[in-house]
């Protein structure tokens, strides 16, 4: 029994009369149901169109962004950070946040700061010696960027560093943890 029928029965049991608009508008219940189904189908198809447009948007955005160009860029001086220290920088473009960690006396590691799950910014946890994403508790190894725990399926892209003079220079980005 539909909600409307229950309401009408309830009103009738209370002695309430049929509303005036209901008497004046001769709309048949079966027709109402038919129109409802057709409208619902139209709504579903429009939602499907919206999903398709979403996929088009993702593709266009990927095409318009293009392949990044990795120009050498100084990131930090060799003695600038203490052991366990962190410096944030952007590489290769201004929209690409990265994180540099001094993991030892003579060891540095730099990664993209975007979590490979949903692009939240990861930070370095000195106590746990790992990179952590606060959004969904995805943890990455600071040694090679691989996933230690959480929803991310891919390792953090590693920023390739070179020592030039007394500075660390970013020269590229690799998606492979072994690089």
């Amino acid at each position, binding site marked *: 029994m539909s909600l409307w029928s229950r309401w009408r029965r309830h009103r009738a049991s209370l002695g309430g009369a049929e509303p005036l608009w209901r008497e004046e508008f001769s709309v048949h219940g079966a027709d109402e*149901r038919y129109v409802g189904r057709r409208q619902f189908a139209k709504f579903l198809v429009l939602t499907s169109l919206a999903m*398709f447009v979403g*996929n088009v948007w993702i*593709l266009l955005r990927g095409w318009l962004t293009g392949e990044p160009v990795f120009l050498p860029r100084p990131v930090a001086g060799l003695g600038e950070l203490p052991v366990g220290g962190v410096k944030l920088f952007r590489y290769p473009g201004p929209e690409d946040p990265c994180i540099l960690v001094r993991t030892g006396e003579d060891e540095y590691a730099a990664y993209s700061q975007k979590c490979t799950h949903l692009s939240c910014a990861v930070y370095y946890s000195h106590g746990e010696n790992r990179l952590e994403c606060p959004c969904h508790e995805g943890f990455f190894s600071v040694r090679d960027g691989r996933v230690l725990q959480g929803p991310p399926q891919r390792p953090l892209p590693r920023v390739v560093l070179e020592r030039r003079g007394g500075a660390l220079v970013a020269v590229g980005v690799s998606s492979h943890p072994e690089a």
Partner: protein
Amino acid sequence: MNPPSERRGLTAIDGALALIAILLIVQMWLLTATLESYLAGHHEGALPALILSGILFLACVGLYLFVRGLDREVRRR
């Protein structure tokens, strides 16, 4: 309107609606998976996902046209 033919028509329309809903759920999953992959910096899956999404959308349109045609046919009787 002939009641048995109306019932059959309604059943067919309900079936088509259920199919559209299933296709839509698959399309939603596809969009979220593509978005997640894109945000992770993997753009190579966007084109296959777009083609599949287009096929699903066309299937939804086809089912909608089927619903509309069946509705008209049942109403005409």
